[in-house]
């Protein structure tokens, strides 16, 4: 075995060991690597109680209400399974909208309402021109309409 083969083997073994160690550490830390908890996790008591944590999910459509002061908002965060009411006073990010992803930091108050200190909008990985979005929405509407007509014709 030449010395350069030895060095090569040493590097390969070293990297493999390191990769294994990193995998073990990361899986051990898995619970602490969570950026936010979903409403389902909160109901399952996986989120820390009595402490501030981040709640993530979608802003449920039709639940966004603004108070007269223009700053306080109420909305419901859902993961399509469980949902939690949230109140927040402050400036909302541009991407905040009903039906959009959101991450709110705060704690659950006595009344069971999540009191947020900070609200972040979560963006998804889809990028498209507005016309395409319109076409998609129309297509969806047409598809559901077509669905109903076929049902009736049957």
């Amino acid at each position: 075995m030449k010395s350069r083969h030895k060095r090569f083997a040493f590097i390969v073994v070293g990297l493999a060991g390191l990769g294994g160690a990193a995998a073990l550490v990361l899986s051990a830390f898995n619970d602490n690597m969570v950026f936010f908890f979903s409403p389902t996790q909160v109901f399952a008591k996986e989120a820390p109680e009595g402490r501030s944590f981040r709640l993530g999910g979608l802003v449920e459509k039709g639940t966004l209400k603004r108070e007269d002061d223009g700053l306080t908002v109420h909305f419901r965060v859902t993961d399509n399974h469980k949902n939690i009411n949230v109140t927040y006073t402050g400036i909302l990010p541009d991407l905040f909208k009903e039906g959009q992803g959101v991450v709110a930091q705060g704690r659950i108050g006595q009344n069971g309402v999540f009191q947020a200190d900070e609200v972040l909008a979560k963006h998804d990985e889809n990028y498209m021109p507005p016309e395409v979005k319109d076409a998609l929405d129309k297509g969806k509407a047409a598809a559901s309409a077509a669905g109903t007509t076929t049902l009736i014709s049957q």
Partner: protein
Amino acid sequence: MSSTKINWFKYSSPQAFYPLAGKMIPWFVVATVLFTVPGLYFSFFVAPPDYQQGEAYRIMFIHVPAAWMSMFIYMVMAAYAGMGLVFNSRLSSMMASALAPTGAMFTFLALWTGALWGKPMWGAWWVWDARLTSELILLFLYIGFISLQAAIDEPRRAARASAILALVGVVNIPIIYFSVKWWNTLHQGASITVNKAPTMAASMFTAMLLMTFAFWMYTIVVALLRVRCEILERERHTDWVMSNEFAGRSPETRNELG
């Protein structure tokens, strides 16, 4: 046929690589321009605005290629550093140190443009989620690599020590790439992956690809420029540097360089 075969190992010697790099640089400069001009044109004029973010999303034509290059350059740098360690070849470790500053620059660019986009869109300049944190660690790895090399005077020892650091840091690359998959992060998932169609309009995708190639070609240009300086500096006592490169210079300049 066999007489025209190029002996590639010849170019692993700094002396043979120095003029070759000099000849390659103008071609890669041309390639950089050829990708940058249409890349910027597509980014600003051809790609349509986004349905949610309007014009603000255009920062991704810098952000995403910079983030890709930051990871790609690290892999190339670590491969060169590892080659230097295994074969004891001087040129490999010189290439590794020539790539490091560009990699650090792209990492910084990715973090900076991300922050500029994050404030209006997410509502925060910075969050400690897995993607952002691991990319910040990448910046520290680059800085660590550069400073470790600068801290040790003897070039061979410096190359060995920093090569080990570079190889250890490779663990971070899959963590950055898969962080958005493994954990729930604020950072969105990948729009472009190898196994499915990109989740963006075709012209946006084209602009992003052009910008990526532009950054890639730029990286090759600056890495070659930097490795030429590195070769001269580390080989300054050899005969070929003294006789070829500085033939015709006054003895005083030679003494200064030597």
